[in-house]
């Protein structure tokens, strides 16, 4: 008998004896549906305007830099301004409609994360510029995946993560975000799906907040 069979056997034997359901001594029988959960969680706003307001507020609390524009040209200008201020020597990005349009005009040397790229080269880049799958109004988060945001390391290894997004990508809450991911990818999921909420942080020394523990010190979201 394999260990797997032994453990599964023990689980099945153990579950022969039922356990009381939690709360009110077993009197609450229903397993709530996902849609009900939204009523109890922090809100994310119903209309686009509300959701944008929520996202802006959460992003500010997280010290993420969220900028909203009217056109992709304004996004290009904003990125050029950041590149200039931070004196980026080299940047990293991935193949994508938005990234290619925006990044190519910066005129900086670019590392594109394709199969076989060198991770120590990525480490030396001033910024990682990616697209995302969704922006979440409820929490000020964004969803990146290994398929549509240039792999696993691009959005976490360089000191500055810049996200390029379209306004239509804002969704109400985490439930909507996960639903979107399932609709888009199932059953062939990317190997990594990450919900990123603000720049990397730690409170491990005296519970004092420090940004940029291992991941990016800065997170900028440029949206149009």
């Amino acid at each position: 008998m394999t260990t797997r069979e032994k453990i599964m056997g023990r689980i099945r034997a153990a579950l022969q004896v039922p356990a009381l359901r939690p709360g009110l001594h077993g009197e609450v029988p229903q397993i709530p549906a996902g849609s009900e959960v939204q009523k109890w969680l922090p809100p994310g706003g119903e209309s686009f305007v509300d959701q944008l307001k929520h996202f802006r507020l959460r992003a500010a609390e997280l010290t993420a830099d969220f900028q909203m524009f009217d056109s992709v040209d304004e996004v290009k200008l904003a990125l050029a301004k950041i590149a200039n201020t931070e004196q980026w020597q080299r940047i990293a990005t991935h193949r994508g409609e938005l990234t290619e349009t925006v990044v190519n005009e910066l005129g900086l040397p670019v590392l594109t994360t394709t199969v076989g790229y060198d991770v120590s080269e990525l480490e030396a880049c001033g910024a990682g510029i990616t697209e995302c799958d969704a922006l979440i109004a409820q929490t000020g988060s964004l969803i990146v995946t290994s398929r549509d945001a240039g792999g696993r390391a691009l959005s976490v290894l360089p000191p500055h993560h810049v996200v390029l997004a379209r306004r239509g990508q804002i969704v109400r809450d985490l439930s909507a975000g996960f639903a979107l991911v399932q609709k888009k990818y199932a059953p062939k999921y990317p190997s990594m799906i990450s919900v990123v909420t603000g720049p990397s942080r730690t409170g491990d020394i005296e519970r004092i907040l420090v940004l940029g523990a291992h991941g990016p010190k800065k997170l900028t979201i440029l949206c149009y």
Partner: protein
Amino acid sequence: MDRKFRTGQPTHSLTMGSFSQTFKAGAGRVATNLRHRRLIQTALGKYEVARDKNRSAFQDWQAARQSAAITKWDAINHLDTYLEKFVAQLEERGAKVHWADTGAQALEIILGIIEQKNARSIIKSKAMTAEEIHLNEALEKAGLEVVESDLGEFIVQLRHEPPYHIVFPAMHLTRGEISELFQRELGSAPTDSPEELTMIARRALRKKYLTADVGITGANFAIAETGMVSITENEGNARLTAAVPKTMITLLGIEKVLPKLSDLALFLPMLATAGAGQALTCYNTLYGGPKQPGECDGPEEWHIVLLDNHRTELLADAEQRDALHCIRCGACLNVCPIFRNVGGHTYGTTYSGPIGSVITPHLRGLQDWKHLSNASSLCGACTETCPVKIDLHHHLLQNRRNAAVQKPSHGERFAYQIFAFAVNRPWIYGLGKKLGRLLQPLHGLVKGSAIDPAYAWTRTRELPPLAPKSFKDLWKARK
């Protein structure tokens, strides 16, 4: 900190009751340490403010708790079905799934993978399950270099100490102590800035990432529906551990299962709020396989080690089965008056606080660890704060009962027989009160000394004088 707790010695190698004695001695020492108290109160004070703020952002926290409790109930009470679903999908995407009965077996599997890959250096992100099986000791003993990448874990690893707390491993240290540690171990310049200290660790660990052969992670949730592991963190160290090394190993207990991907919409905010007082932690990442065709990075090989290590025994105890609902947020530790006074290291266990007191007797032996269930005021703060509504304080009572049934104490039984005899006869009780009033003035002569019959109490406390007249006397007089 007593080093013997770190080495995972079987409990019977120590003389009976020694865990209990060590606990008592440690508790006495730490509870009177004012510096410790100040540090813990400050850290947990900040946590409480942040937690309350984020809890109040929920539209209905109590309904969310009930929903989380039922979801976990469903997961644990159909564990076989969900585990099979979880594993089948992971295997389909090319992950290798291993099953381990015991900690020793899990170590054997992990060491086997590392040996087969001919790996020398290992980077690790935080995993309480790895603490449970004493993974770092085993790796070091095999001559491997293993580096903890979570800042708090990195600090306690440099101090050769176990984590102080499930979520805040270095909560018991000041920045000054951490600066001294870094000067000694890393040769850095002295600083009192937490930011500068974090950057020292960041620089030291970046090098390790780029050269590590194997990355080891834990997991917070195992999603049955989609066959994914969810890892919660703030620093980005787990993201890097899962991105850079060519081989990835994930160790998780079999109880981590959640039925659906959408369940995370509830569990991620609850874990962050209860655990760290955040609305959501910085990175909540799902892994569904090793590097997939067309992807540019990620591990070529991903091994998942599913650990039982007495969890199925806890599962078989239907009364306490809900202890397996635990999401390891540490909220019960933070509100526990015992934890706050005796500190995390005094427990001598991987899991401390109320949840540790409940599950350690199941994981490591009831008779050796029953004292933890007595180290409780039964105030119920743990049960009230638990985001998945584990009935913690009743489980402490059940552990006490089970321990007494398994191994009755004749002395205690005799004492209670005398007590019952006396209180069932009002005249004896009344006589006791009169004698007490007569003898109490004499107590002053021996109070606090070794021959004091009430020494255990009066050593650190005052016994108030008995009232000159009892309630019964007053009631009679009024009639």
